[in-house]
């Protein structure tokens, strides 16, 4: 029971990353590697700020702002510097590693004895793991609502059009460079925000905690899509959160099977690869055809 609650709580906290990455991966239609740097950047920012005595909520919001700045740099390299997006992301991600070490002063900083978002009276009074569930639900409802509202605005529609057909967007007067920069800023802001939440939940920030983040965030997106099929854009955003929770249950299952926590990156990669290849499998194996033939011969 408590394991399931823990999985739901973790799924909700990590879902922020899925929604953040959705903006670039699904709407702007490219893979932004910056997130591997902005996730620990958010964690480092929040932990350092809290250690200096800043209010945890302000520290978490500061993490969003710093993450957005990293996204801004990727965006400028990509749109104004004409560096391919994959490389622009890797450059900023690599740079973030040094920045994170500067912010934290060492590779790992603990929040032991410090105040965090999870240590307010109400959350602390809840049974074990329910704090992350409650906080996760509040965060996801707020963030998902804001993103859904934004995508239905005139600006949001221009943002979607940029990812869908850049030539058309430009011919309608949409400044596609600005849209991409904005998307990268909000996306990385959310990823850093997620990093701040996870660090406070774990009780520490580690300079290596960004490794494999893009795979985890993609897994929530893809699992949500595979599990719920054809959805509208708004429904797909909600499905990201559900996908993130499902993903945590898959990890739980894998750990139960006897794999160690050190195997999780390998397993995450395999799960994501399988989910992404599902359409190919369906086509190659042609399930319906095989099924039909099997029935025919039985007749």
């Amino acid at each position, binding site marked *: 029971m408590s394991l399931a609650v823990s999985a739901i709580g973790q799924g909700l906290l990590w879902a922020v990353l899925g929604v953040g990455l959705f903006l670039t991966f699904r709407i702007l239609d490219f893979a932004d590697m910056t997130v591997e740097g902005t996730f620990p950047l958010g964690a480092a920012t929040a932990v350092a700020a809290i250690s200096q005595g800043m209010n945890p909520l302000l520290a978490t919001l500061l993490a969003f702002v710093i993450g957005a700045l990293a996204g801004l740099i990727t965006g400028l390299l990509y749109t104004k510097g004409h560096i391919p997006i994959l490389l622009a992301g890797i450059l900023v991600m690599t740079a973030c590693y040094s920045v994170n070490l500067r912010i934290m002063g060492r590779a790992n900083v603990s929040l032991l004895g410090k105040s965090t978002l999870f240590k307010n009276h109400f959350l602390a009074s809840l049974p074990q793991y329910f704090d992350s569930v409650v906080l996760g639900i509040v965060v996801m409802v707020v963030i998902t609502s804001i993103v859904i*509202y*934004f995508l*239905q*605005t*005139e*600006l*949001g*529609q*221009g943002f*979607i*059009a940029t990812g*869908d*057909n850049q*030539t*058309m*967007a*430009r*011919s*309608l*007067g*949409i*400044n596609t460079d600005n849209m991409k920069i904005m998307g990268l800023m909000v996306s990385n802001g959310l990823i850093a925000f997620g990093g701040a939440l996870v660090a406070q939940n774990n009780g520490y920030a580690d300079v290596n905690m960004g490794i494999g983040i893009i795979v985890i965030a993609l897994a929530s997106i893809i699992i949500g899509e595979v599990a719920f099929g054809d959805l509208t854009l708004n429904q797909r955003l909600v499905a990201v959160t559900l996908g993130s929770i499902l993903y945590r249950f898959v990890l739980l299952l894998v750990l139960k099977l006897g794999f160690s926590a050190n195997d999780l990156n390998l397993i995450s990669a395999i799960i994501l690869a399988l989910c992404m290849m599902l359409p190919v499998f369906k086509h190659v194996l042609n399930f319906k055809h095989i099924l039909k033939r099997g029935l025919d011969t039985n007749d």
Partner: protein
Amino acid sequence: MTKPLLELKDVVLKVNRNTPEEITILNKLNLTINAGDFITVLGSNGAGKSTLFNAIGGDLSIDSGQILLNGHDIAHESVEKRTRFLARVFQDPKLGTAPRMTVAENLLLAERRGQRRGLMPRGLKHHLAHYKELTATMHNGLDQRLTTATGNLSGGQRQALSFLMATLKRPEILLLDEHTAALDPRTGQDLMHLTNERVAQDKLTCLMITHHMEDALTYGNRLIVLHHGQVTYDVAGADKQALTSEQLYSFFAEIE
């Protein structure tokens, strides 16, 4: 009544600048477009037709010369800025619409062409009835598919939608770049008729590139021929009416 709307003065445009492969595509091109002109643009491949459109649209920057809109030089304005007065329909139906957005959403995007887009709700519902009427004028079933993603439409429907989007908010200048060329002959002719109707009805100023000599003769009040980056033939009004395809063919034979 006629006043110059858009003037191109000695426009030079080169590609592969400062390399051994430098080519001059527009070579001191001069063209004056009057308000209400419907100009068909002819010319062989490489004559500079599409480049002319890209120079007007801002996709390519010019090396020298002026592009004047109502007397103001717009040669250094960005593509986005020029969309305030300019709308385009491309040859490839895929270029004109956003495939994952619905027909209605695409139209709504076009509604704000060249204008600021803010954080106000898009207000799609208020426009649906109008879009239904509008798409019904295309007579190709588009009005039944307002909530369909445009990626699932036929090429003809997509191109008709692109045309509607370009004319939804009346542009001062409409550029049609062989917009019926990718369609089957019948669908292409249907769209051509609709184009002609709409241009006349809204008194649009329009440039249309075509490779169909018949279309070039039938439609529009003026016909120009581009050759080696210059306007080598420019005929309007009654003279254009009197022009025959034989005359045009022999003219082409001469310049080649």
